[in-house]
């Protein structure tokens, strides 16, 4: 299917989806599938499982779209959470654990990194920029909590880091991310201005 994204206001897309219009789904998929797929792949670390989780996630989105409410946040926030939770549920499931049981957690973290560098090389320019701006221990916190669904206590226990340190790192990581995207936002604002001057 085409990569082309349809420019559509979120309200319109939501009302298309909530009226169960197939075109709404098609637009939703075209516009958001790469973002969701990237996140799912980052969590499950297997293209095969990622495709399966994608399908589950989109089915859930389609079936629960009536429950989506603008006041709770953007459509993207909502579908990203559905995809993320579906993926995290999968890696926590017995089936997944069995297939991965030869790997302990430490090596699986390395595995992410190694795989990440070969797998995402086309789209990696953006990631590298952020990762360069993020200290490794901060990135690890975000990845464990956001992509692996760990709680802070679990991270502390699993990696033998004091809970206080985990909290500090999470806080610092989020601050760093915010600063980075604020800068990126300013830069893009200037590039827009440049175009018009």
């Amino acid at each position, binding site marked *: *299917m085409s990569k082309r994204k349809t420019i*559509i206001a979120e309200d319109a897309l939501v009302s298309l989806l909530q009226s169960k219009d197939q*075109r709404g*789904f098609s637009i939703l998929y075209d516009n958001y599938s790469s973002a969701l797929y990237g996140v799912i792949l980052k969590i499950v670390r297997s293209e095969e499982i990622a495709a399966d989780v994608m399908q589950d996630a989109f089915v859930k989105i389609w079936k629960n779209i009536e429950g989506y409410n603008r006041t709770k946040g953007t459509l993207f926030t909502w579908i990203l959470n559905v995809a993320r939770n579906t993926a995290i549920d999968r890696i926590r499931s017995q089936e997944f654990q069995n297939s991965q049981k030869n790997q302990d957690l430490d090596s699986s973290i390395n595995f992410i990194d190694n795989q990440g560098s070969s797998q*995402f090389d086309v789209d990696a320019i953006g990631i590298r920029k*952020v990762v360069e701006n993020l200290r490794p221990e901060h990135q690890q916190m975000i990845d464990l909590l956001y992509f692996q669904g760990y709680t802070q206590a679990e991270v502390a226990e699993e990696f033998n880091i004091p809970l206080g340190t985990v909290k500090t790192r*999470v806080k610092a990581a989020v601050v760093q991310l915010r600063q980075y*995207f604020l800068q990126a936002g300013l830069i893009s604002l200037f590039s827009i*201005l440049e175009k018009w001057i």
Partner: protein
Amino acid sequence: MNIQEYIESGIIENYVLGATTAGESAEVERMALEYPDIQKEIEAIKTSLENYAIQYEKEPPAFLKDKIMGELFSGQSAIGSQQSAVGGRQLMSDNNIDKEIVSLRTSSSQRSIFRMAASWALLALSVGANIWFFKNWKNSEEKLVALESQNQILAKEGKALKASYNEEVAILQNPDFKVIKLIGQKDSPTSTAMVYFDKKQQSVYLSSLNLPQAPTGKQYQLWAFVDGKPVDAGLIDQNGNILKMKQFAKVEAFAISLENTGGSTTEAGPKGTVYVVGAV
């Protein structure tokens, strides 16, 4: 409850990361409803994390869309020819939805118009600021030039004054000079002036003029009385500084009169009022 402390506590990060318990999440949501600052904080963190997540975006395998749509819409035809297969209700509303898409596309182009407008506004703001700064700079520049020329004038005046005082001091310290005080006459009793007269060098200097401002068309003139007759000793065209006048070897008295501009001649003699007189 201190909102800042609550924000600093790190619970909001955990909430957005999905690492809070159900109870904690409910509390954060309750707080967000109550305090807009907390809501803002949640939105900002959410946006950052979503931006971060988007960095990992990757094109899914091409077959996946058809597979998912097949699962969801099995029994219905593919997207291209859906109109024949979808239900009547949808068929009826299709037109409306198309309109809706069109109108919402417009609204997205309105957004880009808004962006453009924002860019122009920023540009205008920046141009405005530049004009303001330029004006200020120009203003300062003009003031500076004015001050510089004023300074030059003052320096010149100071230099002239210094030269004239040096001259006067030199005269006063020279024993050959005789100092003659010219005294005010009946028309102007308070007027005074000083003449320094050196017989040997035949030099006459006029100084310390204390005369009323000459009216327009009028000018003061110094007279030297030689053998009882007034002789033109020079026109006075400056106030304050020491003036070198015409040379004389023998003078009995000096006087200053107010004449028409250009003065009077020795032959005609002083025609106007005599202001001050002093005998040698």
